[in-house]
């Protein structure tokens, strides 16, 4: 069998736009890797016909660091801190995924304190991630003010992280066997204060953007992704839920203490940008209510059950754990030979990598402005795509 391997140059072929009486031609244009709307170094090659986008070809790899290869050379505990650098806005959830995989493989049973702390931290992280996303969406659609409001409120949550962990973005806090440090004595008070502060701010977000008729016109019926197509495209997280598939691992396959809290899964009905927008806004509210249910009931107990200096060898075979980050399902797949404390192969099922390809499906035959809204509503973090 001869398999044809193509290159980017072969991929970008132009065709004359046929159904136009004028002598027009489609053209390619690079959006990125340096572009204000592509959230880092994402490069999108657009095939345009005037203002109309005919095709979106994501060109990746601008910050490919080979984290999976490095993972083969590092212990599981060392690999945890690399996952911070992937989806840096869900850093702790990435840590958690690796820890969950290791704990499941070693059958470590965690105490409630660890689970509570992890869940609260993950939800805080989700809130700050969605707040940042909200601001960036506003900026992508031309309103700069929401960007700073989102950042302003997010900073208070990163303050909580800094107080307990010492870091604001790449924490490396959740470790196999527990959490790195016990929570700071001020943690509970500070979280309560921030939740109290942030609740009216979410209403303000609604006043500023959600209720705004321009935003609604920009988002509604833009980038529609049907449920079947979304499933087939393997998108997860808010993007999938906005298409009407209520797949939220926190509810359907609970980990942590998600089975002990009441919350509702926000879903959309059409799968357009408006649904994706609204689902995230509602998720902030749900996360806040989850934290409120948990914050007063953190039980006592040890916070680290596995000795950090001890060699961690997973049993032979393949191990997989998945959880719901702010952007979708993150799966960690590790194959161990049962002898070495380093994996034979470690693979991240990254939510962003699987989500980014839906931009083409969403954007075909709509305007450049819609493309910006679509990319923004997928909420991609490029380091997690490239890994």
């Amino acid at each position, binding site marked *: 069998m001869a398999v044809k391997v193509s290159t980017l140059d072969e991929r970008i072929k132009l065709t004359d736009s046929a159904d136009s009486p004028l002598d027009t031609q489609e053209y390619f*244009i690079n959006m990125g890797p340096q572009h*204000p*709307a592509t959230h880092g170094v994402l490069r999108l090659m657009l095939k345009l016909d005037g203002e109309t986008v005919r095709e979106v070809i994501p060109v990746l790899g601008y910050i490919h660091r080979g984290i999976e290869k490095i993972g083969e050379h590092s212990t599981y505990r060392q690999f945890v801190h690399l996952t911070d650098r992937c989806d840096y806005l869900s850093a702790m959830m990435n840590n958690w995924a690796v820890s969950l995989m290791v704990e499941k493989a070693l059958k470590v049973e965690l105490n409630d304190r660890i689970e509570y702390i992890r869940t609260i931290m993950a939800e805080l992280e989700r809130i700050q991630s969605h707040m940042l996303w909200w601001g960036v969406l*506003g900026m992508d*659609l031309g309103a700069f003010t929401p960007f*700073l*409001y989102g950042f*302003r409120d997010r900073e208070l949550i990163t303050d909580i992280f800094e107080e307990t962990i010492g870091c604001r973005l790449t924490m490396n806090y959740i470790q196999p066997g527990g959490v790195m440090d016990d929570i700071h004595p001020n943690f509970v008070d500070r979280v309560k204060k921030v939740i109290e502060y942030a609740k009216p701010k979410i209403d303000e977000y609604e006043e500023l953007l959600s209720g705004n008729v*321009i935003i609604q016109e920009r988002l509604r019926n833009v980038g529609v992704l049907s449920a079947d197509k979304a499933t087939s495209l393997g998108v997860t997280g808010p993007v999938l839920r906005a298409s009407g598939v209520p797949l939220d691992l926190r509810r359907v396959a609970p980990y942590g203490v998600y089975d002990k809290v009441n919350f509702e899964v926000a879903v959309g009905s059409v799968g357009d940008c408006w649904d994706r927008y609204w689902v995230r806004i509602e998720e902030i509210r749900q996360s806040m209510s989850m934290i409120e249910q948990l914050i007063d009931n953190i039980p006592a107990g040890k916070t680290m059950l596995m000795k950090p200096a001890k060699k961690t060898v997973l049993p032979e075979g393949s191990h997989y754990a998945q959880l719901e980050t702010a952007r979708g399902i993150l799966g960690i797949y590790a194959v161990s030979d049962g002898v070495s404390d380093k994996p034979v192969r470690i693979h991240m099922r990254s939510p962003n990598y699987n989500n980014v390809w839906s931009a083409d499906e969403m954007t075909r035959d709509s305007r450049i402005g819609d493309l910006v809204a679509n990319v923004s509503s997928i909420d991609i973090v490029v380091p997690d795509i490239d890994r």
Partner: protein
Amino acid sequence: MLDFLFGQLVATHATFDVVTLSDRTTQALAEDPWLAAGYALLGLAGVGGFLSLLGMALIYVERKVAAHFQCRLGPMRVGWHGMLQSVADAIKLLLKEDIIPDRADRVLFLIAPVFSIIATTLGLILIPMSPSLQVVDLNIGVIFISAVSSFGVLGILLAGWSSNNKWSLLGAMRAGAQFISYEISVTLSLLVVTLFAGSLQLSEIVQSQQDGWWIWRGHIVGLVAFFVFLIASTAELNRPPFDLPEAESELTGGFHTEYSGLRFSFFFLAEFINMFIASALAATLFLGGWMPFHIGGLHTFNGLMDLIPPGLWFAGKTTFIIFLIMWVRWTFPRLRVDQLMRLEWKFLLPVGFINLFAAATLVITKLYFFPW
């Protein structure tokens, strides 16, 4: 210049003696050509200096206002509360390398910003800022302004085309479509005022409002015309929510993607001065220009209002509208291309036409709010 501040303290309306610099030049030309040249030079220098000073001040104000809308402080380092930040930026821009892209159309690339700034300057000279501060008082003022303001888009189109950059071209094409569309609405609402005032001359339009501003006197019509004018001229200014020709999150920078240094600052300056012109025009046509706030019949009140110099009245009204435009900019997201066109052709244009008919009816029946 002094009477700009103090000269009209006891102005009795009806006998405003408007002597502009161009009038002085014309008078002096016959007797003393050197004096005429002096007046002309003074006018040029005044306009140039005013242009750059006003531009820098507006940029500073914009940054400060934006910052406080966003819970920030804005420029704080250069000078007291960053007052000299614009000066520093201007120096930086002047000293920057003037980059011309390799494959750009060199001549057009170089002159495009000049087109923009010339159009702006031509508009600026017509604005009556106080009874004695107006460079030229043309009898076709309104038509002249709407003519030169559409001249500015030529600079943008040339800039986008000559940059040889697809983003620039997209921005320029958007700008062209946007200008042509929104120019109609601007003109329609200007026509409403000329109908009311019965004159195209800006100074006469101001004088015609001494019994009440057109925004009040025309019942709803004046108000509608005012808002149509504001929306349409915001679109003509390329300011958010209609900043599609630049649209930094879509087109990276639109028509001025390839510009840097001095030439970029020309576009930048032109944009801010255009904002001033639009606001000043709105103030002149709808809010009575430098005319104090009068209510027909209340002589005491009117007398007290007259104490405030007309220059301040004009500045205050213009500032208010500038602030309104900034406020909108820092609140709203941007429209999409087709939505922008829809707003003009399906909403503003019909409204403008109906409004014009209503204004004509109003003028014929003389049904003003302040008929005395």
